[in-house]
Each structure stands twice: as structure tokens, then as C-alpha cells.
């Protein structure tokens, strides 16, 4: 009898696991993906949507088009996992039994956790990015503030990238001279990664983007138009863009499978839940202290899929485990980009910004739909 493999979440990680397990298990697994919307969203595109460089329609496709014919898609919301009974209860009332469960549930944004910030802009959801672009189109002059209201958040360099793309946008509109751009960072550098921060800080200065360090956004006063930090500093704004606090999905919290923020504790190499041998978590959903990014979800998905396929076939676990690999692009504006690569044993390295990295990212954005979800890239 085929093993029941259930995957919660049809994002990049869940989709890759589904396709790869179905392929590698050679008929010995029955794979089901549960996704609340049935729509696959390419989240790295939000930065471009927010700055008018991409259309919303180019950033989503039906999940069913990205799955192998032998992977079943259930469009429903997972409400509760019962690890003792090995079942998942869905919003419709349906219940799925699993032999192997993958939590690829991603993260959710919680702007409501920041007092006064409900009207602040963000580029962390499709709707947020579209609303932000509308606000930018209406913007004429003043101060634009970009801040971080909680860590961890998806894609650590995103606020810096956004600042560069915003600078390009304002220059193209001819209103850069009338606009102050301020980037508030939780640390005393552009973002967490020190080597890459050193590389981009001179470029921020060159573009006239003011970097304020140790500014952990605590609250917003939407009437006075000020944002205040945990460090008791206050900055005024005309347009405020915040990285919202993130937390794990409700189903993780309701099922008691995560920590106090809903992140799932897993072995950092095998991605297996620290308490349950038949549950894996990948991507944003885990509590591993590594970047929450598509590339991490992608690399982790290939590892989890190989482990599950080996288990259903009764084979020894694969030798290859997740080594902490992260790879991302960082747009530095004016048609250039750099990359950031590291793993558990190797510190981050970034080459000098160049046009080829910008084009590589553009090419990746376009070819994503035909390569990544299907597990065609290593």
C-alpha cells in the first residue's frame, strides 16, 4: 500500500517536496498538497510590484499547473494537526490521515502587533505591494521612511533592496531631489549580514539614502506621523513603509507544534520535527536561525523530499542533509545587483554589484515557473 504523504502549503517549498516525493518514491507514495488558496505566489516579485516594475498578474499561477499529474491538490485550510492520531483536520470538516507530514506553511505578517501601524505600508503581501505602489504614484515630495518592526522577517536584505529600487523610481519620476529616503535598521549596519552590509553601505550613502542604526520600530503615531524605536528615538515621515512582524501560521500554534511565535523546531540538518519522527518542516515555517527565503525553502525541500522518498521505499536515509545553504540576489539599483551565498560552515560572501547579477535575477524571475516548483533545479 502506498504511504500517505501530506504537505501543508503550496508555496515554493511545499510544491517542490510534492513533485519530488511523487517522482522519487516510484509509485510507493500517495502525495497530497493542502493549500488554502490553490494559488501559487512568487513572493520575490513583490519588491518589483511595489516599485512599478512588475504586474501582479505575472506573480501568481494556479498551483495545479505546477504539480505533477500524480500529486493531489486539496484547496482547503488546514486547521489542526493531531500528531498522535496522524491526522490533519481541514476547514471543510474533512480529515486526512498521514504517514509522513510536511509543514511548508510559511509565515504570516502581523502589522497589528505594532501599535499605531495599521495604515503603514509594506511590500510583504500582494495587496500590500499594490497599495504601496499606488501611494508612491501619488507621492510628490517629503520623507519616506523604511523600517523594520520585527525579526525574523522574510528575505533579510529586502528593506535595503527596496530602498535602492525606490531611489531608482524617485529618480525616474524626477522627484528624488524633493524626497528624503531614510532606512532604519535594527542593527548598526544595513542588515544582519556584515560582509554584505559593508558592500552596500557606501552605495546607500552615494544614493543619498540615510541609514539609521539600532532603530527597532516599536510604535507609530499615525496622527503626528512619527515612528518610535525600542531605543527611544523618534523619526518623522510622510510615507511609512514597515517590514511587519512575522509569525508562524495559526495551524502550527493551534496544534502545539511550534514555539511561542509559531515557528516549528526541527533538526537543522534533517529538518525533522524535534519531537515527531514523521513530521518535517521546511522554509519560513521552521525556527532554524537561517534566512527565511525562497532559496532556503527550495534547498530544504529537496532534502526533505529525498528523506521521505527513502523512508517510503524502506531505504537508508540519504547522505545529503541540509547544510544551511542560502543564495539570494540583492538589487542595488541602477541596473546592478549582487548575490549573497553562505551555509552553516561558510560565512557570507558577496561580489561587487554588477549588471550580470541583475540580469541573472531578472532571468530567474521569468524562468521560475518552468524550473523551480517542478524541482528541476538542484
Amino acid at each position, binding site marked *: 500500500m502506498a504511504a500517505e504523504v501530506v504537505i501543508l502549503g503550496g508555496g515554493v517549498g511545499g510544491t517542490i517536496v510534492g513533485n519530488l516525493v511523487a517522482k522519487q518514491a516510484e509509485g510507493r507514495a500517495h502525495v497530497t498538497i493542502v493549500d488554502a488558496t490553490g494559488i501559487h505566489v512568487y513572493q520575490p516579485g513583490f519588491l518589483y510590484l511595489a516599485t512599478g516594475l512588475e504586474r501582479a498578474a505575472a506573480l501568481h499561477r494556479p498551483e495545479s499547473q505546477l504539480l505533477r499529474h500524480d500529486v493531489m491538490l486539496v484547496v482547503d485550510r488546514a486547521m489542526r494537526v493531531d500528531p498522535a492520531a496522524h491526522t490533519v483536520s481541514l476547514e471543510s470538516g474533512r480529515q486526512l490521515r498521514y504517514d509522513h507530514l510536511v509543514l511548508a506553511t510559511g509565515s504570516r505578517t502581523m502589522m497589528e502587533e505594532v501599535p499605531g501601524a495599521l495604515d503603514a505600508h509594506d511590500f510583504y503581501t500582494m495587496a500590500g505591494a499594490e497599495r504601496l505602489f499606488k501611494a508612491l504614484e501619488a507621492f510628490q515630495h517629503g520623507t519616506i521612511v523604511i523600517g523594520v518592526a520585527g525579526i525574523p522577517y522574510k528575505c533579510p536584505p529586502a528593506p535595503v533592496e527596496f530602498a535602492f529600487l525606490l531611489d531608482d523610481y524617485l529618480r525616474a519620476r524626477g522627484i528624488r531631489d524633493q524626497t528624503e529616503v531614510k532606512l532604519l535598521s535594527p542593527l548598526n549596519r544595513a542588515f544582519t549580514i556584515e560582509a554584505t552590509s559593508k558592500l552596500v553601505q557606501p552605495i546607500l550613502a552615494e544614493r543619498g539614502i540615510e541609514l539609521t*542604526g*539600532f532603530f527597532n520600530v516599536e510604535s507609530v503615531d499615525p496622527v503626528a506621523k512619527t515612528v518610535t524605536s*525600542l*531605543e*527611544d528615538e523618534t523619526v518623522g515621515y510622510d510615507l511609512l513603509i514597515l517590514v511587519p512582524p512575522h509569525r508562524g501560521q495559526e495551524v502550527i500554534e493551534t496544534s502545539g507544534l511550534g514555539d511561542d511565535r509559531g515557528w516549528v523546531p526541527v533538526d537543522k540538518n534533517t529538518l525533522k520535527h524535534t519531537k515527531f519522527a514523521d513530521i518535517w518542516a521546511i522554509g519560513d515555517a521552521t525556527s532554524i536561525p537561517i534566512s527565511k527565503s525562497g532559496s532556503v525553502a527550495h534547498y530544504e525541500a529537496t532534502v526533505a523530499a529525498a528523506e521521505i522518498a527513502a523512508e517510503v521505499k524502506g531505504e537508508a536515509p540519504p547522505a545529503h542533509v541540509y547544510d544551511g545553504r542560502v543564495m539570494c540576489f540583492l538589487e542595488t539599483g541602477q541596473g546592478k545587483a549582487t548575490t549573497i551565498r553562505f551555509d552553516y560552515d561558510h560565512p557570507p560572501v558577496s561580489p561587487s554589484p554588477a549588471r550580470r547579477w541583475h540580469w541573472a535575477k531578472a532571468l530567474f524571475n521569468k524562468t521560475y515557473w518552468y524550473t523551480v516548483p517542478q524541482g528541476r533545479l538542484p
Partner: protein
Amino acid sequence: MSITIATTLDLKGLSCPMPIIKTAKAMKTLVPGELLEAFATDPGSVPDFKAWAKATGNPLVESTQEGGVFHFILKKKEA
């Protein structure tokens, strides 16, 4: 004069930038003159605590290391 620690934070196992953010949050609850101690294992926390103390004006009273654990004591600045 004896030193009384108002709050102790166990930040072991956390990686940058969580130690400094948790510390910044905890410092908010102290009154001027009170001390906070923190234990961390991330080597990056050494320069981070030093820089945070300097940037915010809360003195870093102690920064030591023993057996791979970094020990910091911060004093809440006068209002």
C-alpha cells in the same frame, strides 16, 4: 556596594540579531541605574552589545567570556 541585577536574559543559542533585540526590549522595562545581565553564545554579540551600548548611551559595565558563553552587564542610562 553590592551590585543587584534587575533582569537576567538567557540568549544562548540565539543568533544575530536576536540577542540585541531581546536585550533592547528588556532594557525598556528597567528604571535608570538598574542593571541587566545577558548570556549569549553568538560571537557577533560581542561587537553588537558594545556598539548598541555606545549608540544608545546605556553603559556596558561588563563584557566577559567563559567557556564559549559571553556575559554582558548593561546599566540603564539616566533619563
